[in-house]
């Protein structure tokens, strides 16, 4: 059952695991970061990963996005499975077609306009014709309420605008899983509330969100499930 925002109600998330993390270990130097992290996320869920700084929640997202090589265990995203140790370029490429990521500091490409940031991957990775990709990018930005800033450079955007453009960029390739790292870190309370509503509008039965956050209020308002990361492990 969909709400007025097109969200999935917590009760109706079906048992259709789209992200499966099984017993993942990751160590950097002498310091263990993930120590047997295990997690299963169903399609359509919004998962909030909460935990103290250094608990491993951001590292877990980065491992799911293929930005961190883990030592052992397995991560499967929508049918693409990564094992411990270095992965092949092909498996990384396949994984990244399944995952979009919004970074804490947005990381918009500084030399490009907002709309270019959004259509760049569809054109160069998914071979969509540029006019088509640009049209879709504008539509997506309109959905997110930042189409009026399409030609602005990242340095000309406010924090909230930059975040919406970053979300649009991550969604432009239509990944089934969207990862967000500390999305409320640079937002005031009013913007946090807006973001919470926005994320709910974004979620359909085909998309899943994993959000690493410190913000308990936001986590409970936005997520369908709130999990805790501590000592490199995930618990409910």
């Amino acid at each position: 059952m969909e709400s007025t925002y097109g969200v999935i109600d917590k009760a109706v998330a079906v048992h259709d695991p789209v992200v499966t993390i099984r017993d993942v270990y990751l160590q950097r130097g002498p310091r263990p970061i993930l120590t047997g992290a295990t997690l299963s996320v169903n399609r359509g869920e919004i998962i909030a990963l909460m935990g103290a700084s250094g608990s491993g929640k951001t590292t877990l997202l980065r491992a799911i996005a293929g930005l961190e090589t883990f030592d052992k265990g397995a991560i499967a995203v929508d049918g693409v499975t990564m094992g411990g140790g270095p992965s092949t370029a092909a498996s990384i490429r396949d994984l990244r077609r399944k995952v979009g990521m919004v970074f804490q500091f947005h990381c918009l490409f500084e030399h490009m306009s907002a709309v270019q940031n959004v259509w760049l991957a569809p054109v160069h990775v998914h071979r969509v014709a540029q006019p088509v990709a640009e049209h879709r990018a504008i539509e997506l930005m309109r959905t997110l309420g930042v189409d009026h800033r399409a030609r602005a450079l990242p340095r000309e955007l406010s924090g909230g605008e930059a975040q919406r453009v970053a979300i649009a960029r991550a969604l432009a390739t239509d990944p089934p899983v969207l990862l967000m790292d500390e999305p409320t870190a640079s937002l005031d309370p009013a913007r946090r509330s807006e973001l919470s509503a926005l994320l709910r509008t974004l979620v359909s039965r085909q998309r899943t969100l994993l959000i690493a956050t410190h913000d308990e209020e936001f986590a409970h308002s936005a997520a369908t499930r709130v999990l805790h990361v501590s000592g490199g492990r995930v618990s409910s």
Partner: protein
Amino acid sequence: MRSFAAWILVLATSTLASAQSSQPPFRWAGDPEGGAPYVEASPTDPNTLVGFDVEIADLMARGLGRAPQFVLVSFYQIDQSVSRGDAEIGLSGIEDTVARRTTMAVTVPYYAFREVLSVRDGDAGKYRTLSDLAGRRVATLAGTIAYDILLRGEREYGLTAVSYEDDLHPYSDLVLGRVDAVLLDNVLADRRKRTISGFTIQPATVAGSHYVGVFAQANATLRDRANDILKQAMRDGTLERIFRKWQVWNDEQPPLYKAVLASETIPAVTGIDTGESAATMSWWRATARYFPALVRASLVTIALSCLSMALAVTLGILIASGRVYGQRGVRMFLTGYVELVRGTPVLLQLFVLYYGIAAAIKLPAFAAAFLGLALNYAAYESEIYRSALEAVSVGQLEAARTLGFSERQVLTLIRGPQAFRFALAPMMNDFIALLKDSSLVSVLTVMELTKQTQIFATNIGSWVIPGTLCAAMYLMMSLPLSVLARRLEERWKAPTA
């Protein structure tokens, strides 16, 4: 080899110093690079200078009751150095020219020489005079009487004058086939004939002149005393003994000495019309005469700088990419290249490219200059690009990777363009530096702006007008680049935070 400022190095002091310590030393300027028989470091003791000009300097110093003190000055700067007081006299096979007589206080001539043509043995029957060399390249030393003669030859016979900064490479390039003839004086030709085979010195005299000492015009009194010493040495056979010792005495000297001692008027140069010498013209006329050559030389400078920079940028990008992305072996090789190029003088690199590998690859002068500058600047550019690539934040690269870009796409779409903004200012700075460094290639006989200016200055005996014109032309080339750089920086301004 070249130096623009008259840099000074005291190499030796006379053994007479202790006996004549009350008198200031007699400072004389020369260039040991000219070598024997003029001035050279002794083969048995490199700290000691030998040569007939060394002995003439000693002779004068003794006559003046002073100790000789050698001042090292580049051959091309001796007049200017003497004029500004670095030394009292210049002696280093200095030619007696109308310009010099106009702008300096020259001594009486002490040695007569002939300008002679040298050609490859196989061409001895074909190229006997300059008029036989239409369409051919004829080499000589820049800023000499021979160079003036060749410039006339360009107009009258259609030959091409090629200017060198030393007297060895014209002959080695003659034998290699880079030039078809060499016009220099008989002393230099005979000297090279002893060590380089494969060329013939034609017997005909193209022009005649003499070696003289030069004093500053304000030092005419000292010049007159030096003249008295020279004349006495002509009378008592001292000069003959010196020149016989250095195996350059010949039948042309006694008539010269007779004329000097008889106080006859001796023309600076014989065999060519010197009525149109730049030194006797008004500055305005001289400028009008040399201006087209300066413009042509500027075009050479621009073409050389643009081509070299284009190749340097291309190679620099490839080297930087290789150093950032390459395998260990590639990185080590490229690092080695960068360190080798940065650790050795560009002048040495130019020499190696043009002369050093000439036996295997005979590069034309412009090509060697272009390659030399490009290969040198590529090393510096690569360091700029490497640091610029590494300055792009990891977040930008990770954002690109999570969107599915390949590493090549990350480089070409994200990292490269962002690095370019960081590199822009130092790169434009290097381009302006290259414009000026291009003056170094005159050692490879490329006639660029600074070299042409130097010839202009030598011929009119002053740096004021040539130097001002040269500076104005360099500014006209570099200022638009500076403006362009500022505009590009403004347009592609890198984020400040």
